[in-house]
């Protein structure tokens, strides 16, 4: 097998790039310093294409595609920013704001929230949909952590990190559509669940939905980059390095 057969060449935002056949548009774009906003994607976790923020235009295709799960193809012409995409991305961001109760001023993640940062970087000035103001539970039964469903955007990073990296699969999603909610075990209180108390889910949560009790009132930055470090270490140990 020659190396050449595995390499695809394509155009992203007018720039000629090359990529391995198993790469996604998002990966290739970032390798080439082309920024595509993401929310549910996190380096080190599988991609689910849930948030739709990384949508891109592909020449010849009328629909928009999530770049985190779109594999490269030979000769593709991809556009990552346009008025149409801006409109869609802003609307996509408005939806979680309208869906639950995001009040930045009293949120533990204020200043360290990916939803807040994206709102700013994508030029979100207001929400056009009516707020739903649902009454959602806060589960503070865990000795160290709290889940506030009011701030959850259902990105499922917690579900993925718990299953794929920690191997515990405590988190999952219950319900459908607008009624979906993340749960621990079979909808047991977090403090009574089989949680290993590793805290990975808190570190990957992009908002203040999962937080450390001891951080309330203090800045609560999260450090999801531990995931890529962990991956490197695990691969190294597998290869016996």
């Amino acid at each position: 097998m020659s190396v050449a057969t595995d390499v695809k060449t394509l155009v992203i935002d007018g720039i000629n790039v090359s990529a391995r056949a198993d790469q996604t548009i998002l990966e290739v774009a970032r390798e080439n310093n082309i920024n595509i906003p993401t929310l549910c994607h996190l380096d080190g976790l599988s991609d689910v294409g849930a948030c739709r923020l990384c949508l891109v235009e592909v020449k010849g295709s009328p629909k928009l595609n999530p770049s985190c799960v779109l594999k490269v193809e030979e000769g593709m012409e991809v556009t990552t920013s346009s008025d149409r995409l801006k409109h869609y991305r802003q609307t996509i961001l408005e939806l979680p704001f309208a869906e639950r109760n995001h009040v930045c001023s009293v949120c533990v993640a204020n200043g360290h929230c990916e939803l807040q940062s994206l709102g700013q970087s994508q030029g979100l000035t207001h929400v056009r949909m009516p707020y739903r103001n649902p009454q959602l539970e806060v589960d503070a039964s865990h000795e160290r952590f709290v889940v506030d469903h009011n701030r959850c955007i259902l990105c499922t990073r917690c579900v993925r990190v718990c299953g794929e990296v920690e191997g515990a699969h405590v988190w999952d999603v219950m319900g459908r559509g607008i009624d979906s909610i993340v749960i621990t075990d079979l909808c047991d209180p977090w403090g009574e669940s089989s949680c290993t108390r590793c805290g990975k889910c808190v570190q990957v949560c992009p908002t203040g939905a999962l937080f450390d009790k001891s951080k309330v009132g203090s800045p609560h930055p999260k450090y999801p980059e531990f995931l890529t470090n962990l991956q490197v270490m695990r691969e190294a140990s597998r290869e016996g390095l």
Partner: protein
Amino acid sequence: MSQTITIDPVTRLEGHGKITLKTNDQGEVSEAYFTVTQVRGFEKFSQGRPFYEMPGLMARICGICPVSHLLASAKACEAIMSVTIPPTAAKLRSALNMAQTIQSHALSFFYLSSPDLLLGMDADPADRNIFGVVKVDPELGRAGVALRRFGQHIIELLGKKRIHPGWVVPGGVTEPLDSAKRDEILAMIPEAYANIRLALNWYKRIADRFRDEADHFANFPGAFLGMVGEDNGLEFTDGKLRLIDATGKILVDKLEAAQFDDHFGEAVEPYSYMKFPYYKPLGYPDGSYRVGPLARLNIATHAGTPLADIEVKEFKQLANGPVLGSFYFHHARLIDILYGIEFIERIFSDPTILDTHVRATAGVNRLEGSGVAEAPRGTLMHHYKVDENGQMLWANLVIATGQNNNAMNRGVLQTAQRYVKGDKLADGMLNRVEAVIRTFDPCLSCSTHAFGQMPLEIKLVAPDGSTLDTIRRG
């Protein structure tokens, strides 16, 4: 013919309220009501939230005195945690509280009330504002602006934000003080002294002009509640409560926040969303009392700082026993500011203020907790109940302004009976009715948790219910 006068909205206050005056057939004012027309609901929507979020959440009640809510709330949370906070954190918080008292009092005295005092109660309303003050007495206006900035800047240096600083948390504060900020605060002190001295001297020169107002602005025998330190001096943050009667006799002493409910009840009236707290043994309304700067000076034997001690001594000469006229809230407010500057200087001159151990941690150790602090306007109490996970089940706030509610209503009646005559309303009469409310510096947004700005309406209503005359502003 009898009538009802409504002042709606009341101007130059924090919040939104109205005044209704009823006259009898001789045209004399027979009834007066100060109505607060909005409700907010913090006690309700905090339910279910983790208790340690409460300081940040409750501080949003008010943009003028968020620090008082932060402190009362944090102390209620600390009662739930059963912790004693590190001494440096306690000092930093008490300095923050004084900084807020200074800025809030500066706002009340210079921005809201000095127009009446400098330009006169009957001055043209177009000039009767801070701009009119600056035009006539630029030095006084400048001193007011500078004192407010002094307080606000200290809050910003300590808490990173002038309004709603998130620095106070259950267990202490989030970050210790660094020496650069300490030095910056100390460097501002001399100018603050000069400004408050200018204001005090000016006030004492003009106070005599308002002898009649002083006699009729909510001037009546009644009880006073406030915090005192262990030495019976002024205390705003970490003291115990004391209630005295109109003769100065101590009715309750060394009261802890947790005992507040044992001694004080809250009545409601159909015409206002603001509650009417009262001292239980005397019942409602006889057990109504006043809080705030006047109450604090009546209760404390001295200030506890050298310059303020001299002023308190002079203040106490105003009456044989407690000073009962609410007009003297203005005077007391200026003494509070002087005390605050001295207190801040003392706190930041103490080398232990830079200690880095400023936060204690604990979980839920009790299911109920109360915290009390002196807000600029008087005693503020937060009372919480939580479940075993620390989630809020119930909250009750007793706000300073609410505790002055009965006194404000009595004051409105007393002032209206003195100044409102006949069936035609003149601006000067109504301004005095508003001015009596302003002496209390009420914060209606806090006390009812109301939305909006504070305008005012006075309505003159006949016995048959028909409105004869209305003045509306805002």
